[in-house]
Protein backbone atom coordinates (compact mmCIF):
# COMPACT_ATOMS: atom_id res chain seq x y z
CA UNK A 1 0.00 0.00 0.00
CA UNK A 2 1.31 3.43 -0.92
CA UNK A 3 0.63 6.20 1.50
CA UNK A 4 0.67 9.88 0.62
CA UNK A 5 2.22 11.92 3.29
CA UNK A 6 1.21 15.45 4.24
CA UNK A 7 3.95 16.99 2.15
CA UNK A 8 2.60 15.14 -0.85
CA UNK A 9 5.50 12.71 -1.20
CA UNK A 10 4.86 9.03 -1.37
CA UNK A 11 6.43 6.41 0.89
CA UNK A 12 6.37 2.61 0.85
CA UNK A 13 5.56 2.17 4.55
CA UNK A 14 3.56 -0.85 5.57
CA UNK A 15 0.51 -0.13 7.71
CA UNK A 16 1.54 0.06 11.34
CA UNK A 17 -0.09 -2.43 13.72
CA UNK A 18 -2.19 -0.96 16.47
CA UNK A 19 -0.15 -0.16 19.55
CA UNK A 20 0.13 -3.14 21.88
CA UNK A 21 -2.24 -2.99 24.83
CA UNK A 22 -0.72 -1.49 27.95
CA UNK A 23 -0.46 -4.86 29.66
CA UNK A 24 1.51 -6.20 26.70
CA UNK A 25 3.80 -3.18 26.78
CA UNK A 26 4.62 -3.76 30.43
CA UNK A 27 5.07 -7.51 30.00
CA UNK A 28 7.30 -6.93 26.96
CA UNK A 29 9.94 -5.35 29.21
CA UNK A 30 10.47 -8.76 30.81
CA UNK A 31 9.53 -11.21 28.04
CA UNK A 32 11.74 -12.87 25.45
CA UNK A 33 9.01 -12.56 22.86
CA UNK A 34 7.84 -9.26 21.36
CA UNK A 35 4.17 -8.23 21.61
CA UNK A 36 1.35 -8.42 20.75
CA UNK A 37 0.47 -11.40 22.92
CA UNK A 38 -2.47 -13.73 22.77
CA UNK A 39 -4.82 -13.63 25.70
CA UNK A 40 -3.88 -17.24 26.49
CA UNK A 41 -0.10 -16.65 26.27
CA UNK A 42 1.57 -18.17 29.33
CA UNK A 43 3.90 -15.67 31.00
CA UNK A 44 6.60 -18.21 31.79
CA UNK A 45 6.26 -21.03 29.25
CA UNK A 46 5.34 -18.96 26.18
CA UNK A 47 6.85 -15.55 26.88
CA UNK A 48 9.95 -16.76 28.72
CA UNK A 49 9.64 -14.53 31.77
CA UNK A 50 12.09 -15.68 34.45
CA UNK A 51 10.88 -16.17 37.99
CA UNK A 52 13.38 -13.62 39.33
CA UNK A 53 11.73 -10.97 37.13
CA UNK A 54 8.28 -11.54 38.56
CA UNK A 55 8.59 -9.06 41.41
CA UNK A 56 9.69 -6.33 39.01
CA UNK A 57 6.80 -7.20 36.69
CA UNK A 58 4.47 -6.74 39.66
CA UNK A 59 6.00 -3.35 40.47
CA UNK A 60 5.84 -2.30 36.81
CA UNK A 61 2.15 -3.20 36.51
CA UNK A 62 1.34 -1.31 39.69
CA UNK A 63 3.18 1.74 38.42
CA UNK A 64 1.61 1.60 34.94
CA UNK A 65 -1.94 1.20 36.20
CA UNK A 66 -1.50 3.23 39.41
CA UNK A 67 -2.92 0.55 41.65
CA UNK A 68 -1.89 -1.82 44.36
CA UNK A 69 -2.19 -5.48 43.44
CA UNK A 70 -2.89 -8.34 45.78
CA UNK A 71 0.21 -10.54 45.94
CA UNK A 72 -1.59 -13.87 45.99
CA UNK A 73 -3.88 -12.97 43.09
CA UNK A 74 -0.84 -11.79 41.12
CA UNK A 75 1.01 -15.05 41.87
CA UNK A 76 -1.97 -17.05 40.57
CA UNK A 77 -2.07 -15.03 37.33
CA UNK A 78 -0.14 -17.00 34.73
CA UNK A 79 -1.44 -15.70 31.39
CA UNK A 80 -1.80 -12.34 29.68
CA UNK A 81 -5.56 -12.67 30.13
CA UNK A 82 -5.14 -13.28 33.87
CA UNK A 83 -2.96 -10.18 34.19
CA UNK A 84 -5.39 -8.08 32.15
CA UNK A 85 -8.27 -9.07 34.43
CA UNK A 86 -6.12 -8.36 37.46
CA UNK A 87 -5.43 -4.77 36.42
CA UNK A 88 -9.01 -4.28 35.26
CA UNK A 89 -8.34 -4.19 31.53
CA UNK A 90 -10.54 -6.98 30.19
CA UNK A 91 -9.66 -8.17 26.70
Amino acid at each position, binding site marked *: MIEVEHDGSASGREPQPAPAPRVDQVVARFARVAPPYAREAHLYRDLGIE*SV*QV*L*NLLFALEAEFALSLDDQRFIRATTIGDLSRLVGVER
Partner: protein
Amino acid sequence: MSAAGGIHSIRVARAELDGELGEVAGKLAYFAGAGVVGVRRPTPGLLEIDLDPGTSAEARAAIERDVLALVARLAAGYRPLPGRTLFERRAAAPALGIGAEALTTRLVEAGWARRQGPGAYAFGPRFVALVEAIDARLRRLAGAALGATERAFPPLIEADALHRAGYLASFPQSVTFVSHLPARLDAIERFREANARADRFVLPAEAAPEAPVECLPPAVCYHRFRELAGSTLDAGSMITARGACFRYEARGNMRDLGRLWCFQMREVVYTGDEPFVRDAAARAARELEALVAELDLTASCEAAADPFFVDVFAEKRWAQRAGERKLELRLPLGEGETLAAASINAHEDFFGRAFAVRRADGAPITSGCTAFGLERLALAFLAQHGLDERGWPGGVVASMEQRAHAGR
Protein backbone atom coordinates in the same frame (compact mmCIF):
# COMPACT_ATOMS: atom_id res chain seq x y z
CA MET B 1 17.01 5.98 58.34
CA SER B 2 19.59 7.08 60.83
CA ALA B 3 22.87 5.92 62.26
CA ALA B 4 24.27 6.77 65.65
CA GLY B 5 26.15 5.07 68.48
CA GLY B 6 29.33 5.27 70.49
CA ILE B 7 32.89 5.04 69.29
CA HIS B 8 32.80 1.26 69.19
CA SER B 9 29.26 0.74 68.00
CA ILE B 10 26.93 1.90 65.27
CA ARG B 11 23.17 1.96 65.62
CA VAL B 12 21.01 1.83 62.52
CA ALA B 13 17.30 2.51 62.98
CA ARG B 14 14.82 1.85 60.21
CA ALA B 15 11.25 0.59 60.44
CA GLU B 16 11.75 -2.07 57.73
CA LEU B 17 14.47 -3.73 59.81
CA ASP B 18 11.72 -5.50 61.68
CA GLY B 19 11.33 -9.20 60.89
CA GLU B 20 12.91 -10.96 57.92
CA LEU B 21 14.64 -7.90 56.48
CA GLY B 22 16.31 -7.20 59.81
CA GLU B 23 17.48 -10.80 60.05
CA VAL B 24 19.09 -10.68 56.59
CA ALA B 25 20.57 -7.21 57.17
CA GLY B 26 21.97 -8.47 60.48
CA LYS B 27 23.79 -11.32 58.73
CA LEU B 28 25.11 -9.20 55.86
CA ALA B 29 26.22 -6.31 58.11
CA TYR B 30 29.06 -8.57 59.28
CA PHE B 31 30.53 -8.19 55.79
CA ALA B 32 30.64 -4.37 55.99
CA GLY B 33 34.20 -4.41 57.27
CA ALA B 34 36.81 -6.42 59.17
CA GLY B 35 36.14 -4.24 62.22
CA VAL B 36 32.61 -5.61 62.70
CA VAL B 37 32.73 -8.05 65.61
CA GLY B 38 29.04 -8.30 66.48
CA VAL B 39 25.59 -7.39 65.19
CA ARG B 40 22.60 -7.32 67.51
CA ARG B 41 18.92 -6.59 67.03
CA PRO B 42 17.83 -5.45 70.50
CA THR B 43 14.45 -4.15 69.35
CA PRO B 44 12.49 -4.37 66.09
CA GLY B 45 13.74 -1.84 63.58
CA LEU B 46 17.16 -1.43 65.17
CA LEU B 47 20.58 -2.87 64.31
CA GLU B 48 23.47 -2.40 66.71
CA ILE B 49 26.85 -3.07 65.18
CA ASP B 50 29.77 -3.61 67.52
CA LEU B 51 33.21 -2.66 66.28
CA ASP B 52 36.61 -3.86 67.27
CA PRO B 53 38.12 -1.24 69.64
CA GLY B 54 41.06 -0.94 67.25
CA THR B 55 38.84 0.24 64.41
CA SER B 56 40.03 3.60 63.09
CA ALA B 57 37.72 6.58 62.67
CA GLU B 58 38.00 6.26 58.90
CA ALA B 59 37.17 2.55 58.98
CA ARG B 60 34.24 3.25 61.30
CA ALA B 61 32.89 5.90 58.94
CA ALA B 62 33.23 3.50 56.00
CA ILE B 63 31.40 0.71 57.86
CA GLU B 64 28.63 3.11 58.86
CA ARG B 65 28.26 4.31 55.27
CA ASP B 66 28.24 0.75 53.92
CA VAL B 67 25.70 -0.52 56.44
CA LEU B 68 23.34 2.36 55.66
CA ALA B 69 23.74 1.61 51.95
CA LEU B 70 23.23 -2.11 52.60
CA VAL B 71 19.96 -1.52 54.42
CA ALA B 72 18.75 0.89 51.72
CA ARG B 73 19.60 -1.63 48.97
CA LEU B 74 17.92 -4.50 50.80
CA ALA B 75 14.82 -2.43 51.48
CA ALA B 76 14.56 -1.25 47.86
CA GLY B 77 12.04 -3.57 46.28
CA TYR B 78 11.44 -5.54 49.46
CA ARG B 79 7.83 -6.69 49.55
CA PRO B 80 6.70 -8.91 52.40
CA LEU B 81 4.95 -12.08 51.31
CA PRO B 82 3.62 -14.25 54.12
CA GLY B 83 3.80 -17.95 53.35
CA ARG B 84 1.88 -20.95 54.56
CA THR B 85 2.84 -23.23 57.40
CA LEU B 86 2.93 -26.85 56.29
CA PHE B 87 2.77 -28.29 59.79
CA GLU B 88 3.36 -27.33 63.38
CA ARG B 89 4.02 -29.52 66.36
CA ARG B 90 4.17 -28.58 69.99
CA ALA B 91 6.03 -30.72 72.50
CA ALA B 92 7.12 -29.82 76.02
CA ALA B 93 8.74 -26.41 76.48
CA PRO B 94 12.48 -26.29 75.75
CA ALA B 95 14.17 -28.12 78.60
CA LEU B 96 17.09 -25.76 78.88
CA GLY B 97 15.40 -22.51 77.87
CA ILE B 98 18.63 -21.05 76.56
CA GLY B 99 19.76 -19.81 73.16
CA ALA B 100 22.46 -21.19 70.88
CA GLU B 101 25.33 -19.25 72.40
CA ALA B 102 24.59 -20.23 76.00
CA LEU B 103 23.89 -23.82 74.98
CA THR B 104 27.20 -24.00 73.12
CA THR B 105 29.00 -22.72 76.20
CA ARG B 106 27.29 -25.40 78.27
CA LEU B 107 28.22 -28.14 75.79
CA VAL B 108 31.83 -26.99 75.70
CA GLU B 109 31.99 -26.96 79.51
CA ALA B 110 30.47 -30.44 79.63
CA GLY B 111 33.02 -31.78 77.14
CA TRP B 112 30.53 -32.44 74.34
CA ALA B 113 32.21 -30.00 71.95
CA ARG B 114 35.38 -27.99 71.63
CA ARG B 115 35.89 -24.93 69.47
CA GLN B 116 38.71 -25.41 66.97
CA GLY B 117 38.32 -22.13 65.09
CA PRO B 118 35.60 -19.83 63.77
CA GLY B 119 32.56 -21.97 63.02
CA ALA B 120 34.58 -25.17 63.44
CA TYR B 121 34.15 -27.58 66.36
CA ALA B 122 35.52 -30.91 67.45
CA PHE B 123 32.88 -33.15 69.03
CA GLY B 124 33.07 -35.58 71.91
CA PRO B 125 31.55 -39.08 71.98
CA ARG B 126 28.12 -38.07 73.31
CA PHE B 127 27.52 -35.43 70.65
CA VAL B 128 28.84 -37.79 67.97
CA ALA B 129 26.54 -40.57 69.20
CA LEU B 130 23.54 -38.24 69.06
CA VAL B 131 24.40 -37.00 65.55
CA GLU B 132 24.88 -40.58 64.33
CA ALA B 133 21.58 -41.68 65.89
CA ILE B 134 19.80 -38.84 64.11
CA ASP B 135 21.57 -39.65 60.85
CA ALA B 136 20.70 -43.33 61.18
CA ARG B 137 17.05 -42.27 61.37
CA LEU B 138 17.54 -39.98 58.35
CA ARG B 139 19.07 -42.81 56.33
CA ARG B 140 15.99 -44.90 57.07
CA LEU B 141 13.85 -41.94 56.03
CA ALA B 142 15.77 -41.56 52.78
CA GLY B 143 16.27 -45.24 51.99
CA ALA B 144 13.45 -47.37 53.37
CA ALA B 145 10.74 -44.70 53.31
CA LEU B 146 11.57 -42.71 50.18
CA GLY B 147 13.55 -45.29 48.21
CA ALA B 148 16.71 -43.24 47.74
CA THR B 149 19.98 -44.98 46.95
CA GLU B 150 23.12 -44.02 48.85
CA ARG B 151 25.81 -41.95 47.15
CA ALA B 152 29.12 -40.45 48.28
CA PHE B 153 30.69 -37.28 46.95
CA PRO B 154 34.11 -35.68 47.41
CA PRO B 155 34.64 -32.81 49.85
CA LEU B 156 35.68 -30.55 46.95
CA ILE B 157 33.64 -29.09 44.15
CA GLU B 158 34.73 -27.12 41.09
CA ALA B 159 34.06 -23.38 41.33
CA ASP B 160 32.64 -23.68 37.81
CA ALA B 161 30.01 -26.14 39.07
CA LEU B 162 28.92 -23.59 41.69
CA HIS B 163 28.89 -20.97 38.95
CA ARG B 164 26.60 -23.12 36.82
CA ALA B 165 24.41 -23.71 39.84
CA GLY B 166 23.99 -19.96 40.27
CA TYR B 167 25.55 -20.09 43.73
CA LEU B 168 28.25 -17.51 43.01
CA ALA B 169 25.66 -15.01 41.77
CA SER B 170 23.29 -15.57 44.68
CA PHE B 171 25.48 -16.25 47.74
CA PRO B 172 28.97 -14.90 46.98
CA GLN B 173 29.48 -14.02 50.64
CA SER B 174 29.31 -17.69 51.66
CA VAL B 175 31.77 -19.26 49.21
CA THR B 176 34.83 -21.01 50.61
CA PHE B 177 37.64 -21.39 48.09
CA VAL B 178 40.37 -24.00 48.07
CA SER B 179 43.85 -23.28 46.80
CA HIS B 180 47.45 -24.45 47.05
CA LEU B 181 50.94 -23.11 46.62
CA PRO B 182 52.00 -22.19 43.09
CA ALA B 183 53.69 -24.95 41.08
CA ARG B 184 57.13 -23.32 41.41
CA LEU B 185 59.87 -25.05 43.36
CA ASP B 186 61.44 -21.79 44.53
CA ALA B 187 58.11 -20.48 45.88
CA ILE B 188 57.40 -23.76 47.68
CA GLU B 189 60.89 -23.71 49.19
CA ARG B 190 60.44 -20.11 50.39
CA PHE B 191 57.17 -21.09 51.98
CA ARG B 192 58.74 -24.15 53.64
CA GLU B 193 61.69 -22.18 54.88
CA ALA B 194 59.57 -19.34 56.27
CA ASN B 195 57.30 -21.74 58.15
CA ALA B 196 60.17 -23.84 59.45
CA ARG B 197 61.65 -20.70 61.05
CA ALA B 198 58.46 -19.00 62.25
CA ASP B 199 56.66 -19.91 65.44
CA ARG B 200 53.30 -19.67 63.69
CA PHE B 201 51.86 -19.90 60.18
CA VAL B 202 53.25 -17.36 57.73
CA LEU B 203 52.50 -16.79 54.07
CA PRO B 204 55.38 -15.13 52.18
CA ALA B 205 54.16 -12.82 49.44
CA GLU B 206 56.18 -14.68 46.80
CA ALA B 207 54.35 -17.91 47.68
CA ALA B 208 50.83 -16.51 47.36
CA PRO B 209 48.38 -19.36 46.62
CA GLU B 210 47.15 -19.92 43.09
CA ALA B 211 43.84 -18.42 42.09
CA PRO B 212 41.28 -20.98 43.22
CA VAL B 213 39.37 -23.16 40.80
CA GLU B 214 37.90 -25.42 43.48
CA CYS B 215 35.66 -24.74 46.43
CA LEU B 216 34.40 -26.49 49.49
CA PRO B 217 30.79 -27.48 48.81
CA PRO B 218 28.04 -25.35 50.39
CA ALA B 219 25.48 -28.13 49.91
CA VAL B 220 25.41 -31.78 48.85
CA CYS B 221 22.95 -31.47 45.97
CA TYR B 222 25.35 -29.47 43.75
CA HIS B 223 27.53 -32.57 43.56
CA ARG B 224 24.56 -34.51 42.24
CA PHE B 225 23.90 -32.02 39.43
CA ARG B 226 27.61 -31.89 38.63
CA GLU B 227 27.55 -35.67 38.39
CA LEU B 228 24.52 -35.66 36.09
CA ALA B 229 25.73 -32.78 33.89
CA GLY B 230 25.09 -33.43 30.20
CA SER B 231 23.25 -36.69 30.79
CA THR B 232 19.80 -37.94 29.88
CA LEU B 233 17.64 -39.59 32.51
CA ASP B 234 15.16 -42.21 31.37
CA ALA B 235 13.30 -42.24 34.68
CA GLY B 236 13.03 -40.40 37.95
CA SER B 237 15.87 -40.95 40.36
CA MET B 238 16.35 -40.35 44.04
CA ILE B 239 19.64 -40.44 45.89
CA THR B 240 20.82 -39.62 49.38
CA ALA B 241 24.26 -38.54 50.50
CA ARG B 242 25.88 -37.08 53.56
CA GLY B 243 28.72 -34.66 53.34
CA ALA B 244 30.66 -31.89 54.99
CA CYS B 245 29.35 -28.51 53.83
CA PHE B 246 30.89 -25.09 54.18
CA ARG B 247 29.22 -21.70 54.32
CA TYR B 248 31.30 -18.74 55.39
CA GLU B 249 29.30 -16.43 57.64
CA ALA B 250 31.92 -13.81 58.66
CA ARG B 251 34.15 -14.55 61.61
CA GLY B 252 32.24 -12.40 64.08
CA ASN B 253 28.99 -14.19 63.26
CA MET B 254 30.21 -17.74 63.88
CA ARG B 255 30.06 -17.76 67.65
CA ASP B 256 28.18 -20.94 68.41
CA LEU B 257 27.03 -24.32 67.17
CA GLY B 258 23.98 -22.77 65.56
CA ARG B 259 26.09 -21.04 62.93
CA LEU B 260 28.96 -23.18 61.71
CA TRP B 261 31.35 -22.59 58.85
CA CYS B 262 31.65 -26.35 58.34
CA PHE B 263 28.87 -28.74 59.15
CA GLN B 264 27.39 -32.10 58.18
CA MET B 265 24.45 -32.24 55.84
CA ARG B 266 22.32 -35.21 54.79
CA GLU B 267 20.38 -34.62 51.61
CA VAL B 268 17.84 -36.48 49.55
CA VAL B 269 17.95 -35.29 45.93
CA TYR B 270 15.20 -36.21 43.47
CA THR B 271 15.29 -35.66 39.73
CA GLY B 272 12.86 -36.52 36.97
CA ASP B 273 9.66 -35.14 35.54
CA GLU B 274 7.44 -32.72 37.42
CA PRO B 275 4.95 -35.27 38.84
CA PHE B 276 7.80 -37.46 40.11
CA VAL B 277 9.50 -34.54 41.86
CA ARG B 278 6.25 -33.19 43.27
CA ASP B 279 5.37 -36.61 44.66
CA ALA B 280 8.87 -37.04 46.13
CA ALA B 281 8.64 -33.65 47.86
CA ALA B 282 5.22 -34.46 49.29
CA ARG B 283 6.46 -37.80 50.62
CA ALA B 284 9.57 -36.12 52.05
CA ALA B 285 7.34 -33.60 53.85
CA ARG B 286 5.29 -36.40 55.43
CA GLU B 287 8.47 -38.18 56.50
CA LEU B 288 9.84 -34.95 57.95
CA GLU B 289 6.71 -34.53 60.06
CA ALA B 290 7.03 -38.14 61.23
CA LEU B 291 10.67 -37.54 62.14
CA VAL B 292 9.75 -34.49 64.21
CA ALA B 293 7.16 -36.56 66.08
CA GLU B 294 9.60 -39.41 66.65
CA LEU B 295 12.20 -37.01 68.04
CA ASP B 296 9.39 -35.37 70.06
CA LEU B 297 10.36 -31.89 68.95
CA THR B 298 8.46 -28.64 68.96
CA ALA B 299 8.71 -27.51 65.37
CA SER B 300 7.19 -25.53 62.58
CA CYS B 301 7.62 -26.21 58.87
CA GLU B 302 6.95 -23.02 56.95
CA ALA B 303 7.61 -21.15 53.73
CA ALA B 304 11.02 -19.49 53.73
CA ALA B 305 13.67 -17.96 51.50
CA ASP B 306 17.42 -18.23 51.24
CA PRO B 307 19.70 -15.37 52.36
CA PHE B 308 20.45 -14.04 48.87
CA PHE B 309 23.11 -11.36 48.59
CA VAL B 310 22.17 -7.69 48.70
CA ASP B 311 21.26 -6.66 45.15
CA VAL B 312 19.47 -9.88 44.20
CA PHE B 313 17.83 -10.35 47.57
CA ALA B 314 14.44 -8.72 46.89
CA GLU B 315 13.74 -10.39 43.52
CA LYS B 316 15.04 -13.87 44.31
CA ARG B 317 13.52 -13.97 47.76
CA TRP B 318 10.13 -12.93 46.43
CA ALA B 319 10.29 -15.42 43.56
CA GLN B 320 11.23 -18.21 45.97
CA ARG B 321 8.40 -17.37 48.33
CA ALA B 322 5.85 -16.77 45.58
CA GLY B 323 6.64 -20.14 44.04
CA GLU B 324 6.76 -21.74 47.50
CA ARG B 325 10.09 -23.25 46.54
CA LYS B 326 11.45 -23.52 50.05
CA LEU B 327 9.89 -24.91 53.19
CA GLU B 328 12.03 -24.73 56.27
CA LEU B 329 11.86 -26.75 59.47
CA ARG B 330 12.34 -24.30 62.33
CA LEU B 331 13.06 -25.61 65.80
CA PRO B 332 12.85 -23.35 68.86
CA LEU B 333 15.79 -23.29 71.24
CA GLY B 334 15.25 -20.84 74.09
CA GLU B 335 15.44 -17.08 74.61
CA GLY B 336 13.10 -16.65 71.62
CA GLU B 337 15.58 -18.19 69.16
CA THR B 338 14.70 -20.69 66.47
CA LEU B 339 17.03 -22.71 64.29
CA ALA B 340 16.39 -23.74 60.67
CA ALA B 341 17.46 -27.40 60.77
CA ALA B 342 16.00 -28.87 57.57
CA SER B 343 14.44 -27.70 54.35
CA ILE B 344 12.43 -28.97 51.40
CA ASN B 345 13.46 -27.23 48.19
CA ALA B 346 11.80 -27.18 44.79
CA HIS B 347 14.21 -26.26 41.98
CA GLU B 348 11.74 -26.62 39.10
CA ASP B 349 13.89 -27.06 35.97
CA PHE B 350 16.63 -24.62 37.08
CA PHE B 351 19.37 -27.22 37.60
CA GLY B 352 18.18 -29.27 34.65
CA ARG B 353 18.80 -26.27 32.41
CA ALA B 354 21.97 -25.12 34.20
CA PHE B 355 23.65 -28.54 33.98
CA ALA B 356 22.01 -29.68 30.72
CA VAL B 357 20.37 -32.69 32.34
CA ARG B 358 17.52 -33.86 30.14
CA ARG B 359 14.68 -36.31 30.22
CA ALA B 360 14.26 -38.86 27.44
CA ASP B 361 11.88 -36.45 25.67
CA GLY B 362 14.60 -33.78 25.59
CA ALA B 363 13.07 -31.48 28.21
CA PRO B 364 15.26 -30.38 31.11
CA ILE B 365 14.71 -32.41 34.26
CA THR B 366 12.82 -31.05 37.22
CA SER B 367 14.49 -31.48 40.59
CA GLY B 368 14.15 -30.94 44.28
CA CYS B 369 15.93 -31.80 47.49
CA THR B 370 15.31 -32.25 51.18
CA ALA B 371 18.26 -31.27 53.35
CA PHE B 372 19.05 -31.83 57.01
CA GLY B 373 21.70 -30.00 59.03
CA LEU B 374 22.94 -32.66 61.43
CA GLU B 375 24.61 -30.45 64.05
CA ARG B 376 21.62 -28.10 64.07
CA LEU B 377 19.19 -30.98 64.54
CA ALA B 378 21.34 -32.25 67.40
CA LEU B 379 21.64 -28.79 68.96
CA ALA B 380 17.88 -28.16 68.86
CA PHE B 381 17.28 -31.68 70.18
CA LEU B 382 19.52 -30.92 73.15
CA ALA B 383 17.89 -27.54 73.72
CA GLN B 384 14.49 -29.20 73.84
CA HIS B 385 15.36 -32.43 75.70
CA GLY B 386 18.36 -31.45 77.79
CA LEU B 387 21.73 -33.14 78.11
CA ASP B 388 20.52 -36.00 80.28
CA GLU B 389 19.81 -39.00 78.07
CA ARG B 390 17.28 -40.35 80.57
CA GLY B 391 14.88 -37.66 79.40
CA TRP B 392 15.29 -38.38 75.70
CA PRO B 393 12.83 -40.17 73.40
CA GLY B 394 13.35 -43.95 73.56
CA GLY B 395 14.07 -44.38 69.85
CA VAL B 396 17.08 -42.08 69.94
CA VAL B 397 18.54 -43.77 73.01
CA ALA B 398 17.95 -47.23 71.49
CA SER B 399 19.73 -46.20 68.30
CA MET B 400 22.68 -44.86 70.29
CA GLU B 401 22.88 -48.09 72.31
CA GLN B 402 22.68 -50.17 69.14
CA ARG B 403 25.57 -48.25 67.65
CA ALA B 404 27.58 -48.51 70.86
CA HIS B 405 27.10 -52.34 70.88
CA ALA B 406 28.04 -52.55 67.21
CA GLY B 407 31.24 -50.65 67.94
CA ARG B 408 32.39 -53.06 70.65
